[in-house]
């Protein structure tokens, strides 16, 4: 058993949606037994960054299919991003997505938009959404370009006990880009997005954080420069947190050489030096969470010229194995980055992320760290197939997932 309090060997008894007992050789006649031999029992994983596409893009994903993919990946809670059609920028749309998630095999939470329609012009009704339990706000898919508007949003949000999360990208500098600007974009003749387009907004938001005192979370950071800025902000005591996505510590811009849009993502795949910086920042504690940026797109959308295809990759079913396999970190640290640290950022501590103790909500995952498997896009639970890891051999897989006491995944199979 692994949680924020440490690692030990124990049985876990679950009843009524809660942990009933933790101890050696627990005896519970008639109880369903899930074998966890050779496995780690951990608090369920929490994803700060999932695009579930509903409402509006149900051909790519629905709340139900996305939640099933999440459960298979070991997640018991995911935060749905607001770049749906319509955007999640009002209580009505928040309610719709929460209702869709009510019967899903994973706890579906919602991030609300910072601005109306994610258009970056006027503040969305954050208090109305916060009243429904929304704890994260972002215009993800785009950053809030206007510094004055972002300042007001941070100030306004500071009274609501919510966190603003930024997709850091200066649109003027990034305009027209489809991949990281550098050696490969130059060779391939594709317009690039410089690392500085991300770093400018990270630097601006750190300044706004200093100005307002409000909390800020940085989504999917991808460059060495961004991580240096965050490290300095944290050292200065500013209330900032940061996440990175698995593709930014496993893949580089060289993957684009074949022009396959499955490698198109925003922020783009960066250089090997950036990948090394992301790994180092994870090891150093500069980064607080690994988030998937799960971004499904229907096959027909991705079978397009690189510069016409939408950006985004699947992530929910592969994140844990990639983190276990690619990061030179102890499993306890990997689980901290995937479970209890993101749970705290999402305002879910207490419900998700453990610790596993009597009376705690029974949101758990059972990880087999030795399970070897091959990513087969056609076997993924997501409605889309745009994983960049098709055919890749991975090690480490979620064997069981328990949501509020119910086993929603048993022996690698979704139960509903």
């Amino acid at each position, binding site marked *: 058993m692994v949680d924020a309090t440490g690692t030990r060997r124990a049985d876990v008894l679950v009843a009524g949606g809660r942990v009933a007992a933790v101890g050696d050789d627990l005896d519970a006649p008639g109880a369903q037994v899930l074998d966890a031999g050779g496995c780690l029992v951990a608090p369920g994983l929490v994803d700060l960054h999932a695009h579930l596409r509903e409402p509006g893009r149900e051909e790519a994903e629905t709340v139900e299919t996305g939640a099933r993919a999440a459960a298979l990946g070991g997640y018991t809670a995911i935060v749905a991003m607001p770049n749906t059609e319509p955007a999640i920028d009002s209580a009505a749309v928040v309610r719709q997505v929460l209702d869709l998630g009510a019967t899903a095999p994973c706890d579906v939470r919602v991030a609300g938009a910072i601005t109306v329609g994610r258009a970056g012009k006027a503040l969305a009704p954050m208090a109305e959404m916060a009243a429904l339990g929304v704890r994260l706000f972002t215009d993800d898919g785009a950053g809030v370009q206007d510094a004055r508007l972002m300042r007001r949003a941070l100030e306004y949000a500071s009274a609501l006990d919510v966190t603003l999360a930024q997709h850091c990208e200066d649109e003027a500098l990034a305009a027209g880009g489809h991949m990281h600007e550098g050696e490969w974009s130059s*060779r391939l003749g594709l317009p690039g997005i410089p690392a500085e387009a991300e770093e400018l907004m990270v630097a601006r938001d750190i300044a706004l954080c200093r100005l307002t005192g409000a909390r800020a979370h940085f989504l999917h950071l991808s460059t060495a420069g961004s991580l240096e800025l965050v490290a300095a902000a944290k050292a200065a005591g500013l209330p900032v947190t940061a996440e990175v996505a698995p593709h930014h510590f496993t893949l580089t811009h060289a993957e684009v050489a074949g022009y396959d849009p499955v490698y198109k993502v925003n922020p783009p795949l960066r250089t090997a030096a950036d990948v090394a910086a992301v790994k180092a920042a994870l090891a150093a504690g500069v980064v607080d969470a690994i988030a998937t940026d799960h971004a499904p797109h229907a096959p027909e959308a991705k*079978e397009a010229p690189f510069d016409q295809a939408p950006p985004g990759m699947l992530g929910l079913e592969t994140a844990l194995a990639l983190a276990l396999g690619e990061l030179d970190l102890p499993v306890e640290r990997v689980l901290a980055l995937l479970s209890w640290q993101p749970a705290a950022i999402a305002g879910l501590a207490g419900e998700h992320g453990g610790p596993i103790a009597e009376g705690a909500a029974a949101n758990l995952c059972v990880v087999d760290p030795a399970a070897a498997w091959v990513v087969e896009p056609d076997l993924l639970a997501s409605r889309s197939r745009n994983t960049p890891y098709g055919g890749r051999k991975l090690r480490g897989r979620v064997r069981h997932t328990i949501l509020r006491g119910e086993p929603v995944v048993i022996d690698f199979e979704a139960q509903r």
Partner: protein
Amino acid sequence: MKHLLAVNDLGAEGIEEVLRVTDSFVEVSSRAIPKVPALRGKTVVSLFYESSTRTRLSFETAARRLSADIMTFTAPTSAIAKGESLRDTVETIQAMGIDAVVVRHGSAGVPQLIASWIDASVVNAGDGWHEHPTQALLDCYTIRQRRGSLDALRIAVVGDVKHSRVARSDVAAFALLGADVTLVAPPTLLPPSLEGWPVTVSHDLDAVLPKVDVVYVLRLQNERMKEALLPSLREYTASYGLTRRRADLLADDALVMHPGPMNRGVEIAADVAALENSVITTQVANGVAVRMAVLYLLLGSGQDLAG
């Protein structure tokens, strides 16, 4: 050779082979009836998503002189205009039973994508800013015709390298054949990174011109002004245009080249394009023979060329 997607796929030997076969087709083109039955029964599709008169006509002429059948899809007149996806269009064409697709597209990488979807041979006739390999082949052929070899030749490529598929293919081909390439352009018109490019860079055309054997002038598109890449056409011409005064800095036997279509008075002066050492129309003439060679090498099955 199954496809022609990029110059580096050919390598130096591949380029030499195309140039050797081109010699035979230059001879064919000089006959009273410039036609051979080498590709009789083969079907070549020209799939042009961007308007391009010269390249499309050059390929279609090449295919006809080899007795292949031609089908033409151009963007404004076909299913492309009705919103059909690239993949559906390509699979529809493939279903008709064809042997090669010659593709021009505004997006880099489209020939690679098409090659991954279908069995027919794919010839890249220009993809976005990426490559235009047959242009590079005809440029090499033209230079070799006049200078015997590219080995150790000094070639300046002048102008909008950043947005130029011709430049990417030419730089690769010139370097593979042993030439010493200098890019001359304002920094805003160079690619953001030149890591791995076998070139040197200069911003001083006057200093470069006396030292080169070939000056290759790239087309400057008017929309570059709108993207804050240049202050004005006038300033571009003053700094990087091949004016009559600058042409006089060239060695007597230095060649002037341009891929066309020219913006006379912008990147090249009208009277420079007409100089004796300008081989711009020779480039066009050689284009047909080079494309015959490419199609023959991709689709031919050893028939007697003299046929």
